[in-house]
């Protein structure tokens, strides 16, 4: 009996030491944690007072790019630390006057290639959470650097 357990354990530890099985080990851990997470879903509650809230306005001519706020005016931006973002609310949109005219006169602006995504979310991204934007592009550039290095290596 003990010999069988020992043999099984040896096979298991041999399997664990092979790095090709690493993804499987991580996947098993991931499945366990995900199941725990799903079981805990009833215990989670959605906090109504979200600092980065998002609303969808399906009737807007900018749909699906309408993120609230009126272009060319100052918008109300909720920030965690308003003192650190003194210019929040002043760069509310990236719509040009011509695209704003298009959006007001035709219902198709959201579907055209000239659609400029803009509004509250961009204000949050570039003004109050600027460091996130910087790190995101750094991740992209690092990935490009690795890909180009691997592509150009000779051996």
């Amino acid at each position: 009996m003990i010999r069988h357990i020992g043999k099984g354990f040896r096979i298991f530890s041999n399997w664990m030491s092979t790095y090709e099985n690493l993804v499987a080990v991580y996947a098993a851990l991931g499945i366990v944690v995900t199941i725990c997470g799903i079981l805990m879903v009833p215990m989670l509650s959605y906090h109504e007072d979200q600092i980065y809230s998002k609303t969808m306005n399906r009737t807007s001519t900018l749909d699906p790019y309408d993120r609230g706020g009126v272009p060319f005016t100052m918008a109300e931006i909720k920030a965690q630390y308003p003192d650190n973002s003194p210019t929040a609310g002043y760069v509310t949109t990236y719509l040009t006057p011509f695209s704003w005219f298009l959006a007001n006169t035709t219902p198709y602006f959201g579907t055209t290639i000239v659609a400029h995504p803009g509004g509250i979310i961009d204000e949050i991204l570039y003004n109050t959470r600027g460091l996130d934007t910087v790190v995101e592009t750094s991740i992209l550039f690092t990935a490009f650097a690795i890909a180009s290095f691997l592509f150009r290596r000779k051996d």
Partner: protein
Amino acid sequence: MFNLPIEGEELFALEFGDIVNYFSLYTTTLFLFATAFIIIAIIARPERQTDIVFGTDAVYTKEINQDNLRFQRFMAIACGLATLGAVCSGDLFNFSLFTALIGITNIGIVAGVNNRYVLNAAYNYGIVAMVATTFLFGGASMALGTCGTLSIWELAGKGLVPLAAKMFLVLGVMGEGMAPFYIAKAEITRAPGAPYVLMIHVSSLLIFLRVIEIILTV
């Protein structure tokens, strides 16, 4: 936040809009440790591994060519800088982003190695690092949904962040930094070029220490 036992006293706060990085006694220690290793990676020349042919007097040294060395050094420094960002970040989402950057630069460090086994191990590690981002950002988004904010300053000491989000964060960091999965790392560290390859270990150790601090604080 700074009267909690793990954190120590407040030394300095660095504001980036809503993201306010903080240097407590704990995070400053991690920060200085990472800085020391960046300096080592900048000034040190890579070690040259020596193999002795058994039974003879023959010895051969593994040379690293200049291109690979440059790329490895660049990635090691980038990894160090990402670690600096991750250890002092005061925001859950920003921490997740820096951790994802560490995972990518770790793959970059071993991409500059010519050994087939090392590259195979790095490939498997890369898949894990990609899958781990799901848990990492999932944890951060669960914290945002249930608490309404991401700032560690606001969440500290309240215990609002649900256990599931904490578990997701830890599993994500485990995948990115490979802290407990040394079976792949043993293969990776066969790679020549000691100070650069060591940056993989240092960064994973530091982000693991940091995520423990975060889940004990929030």
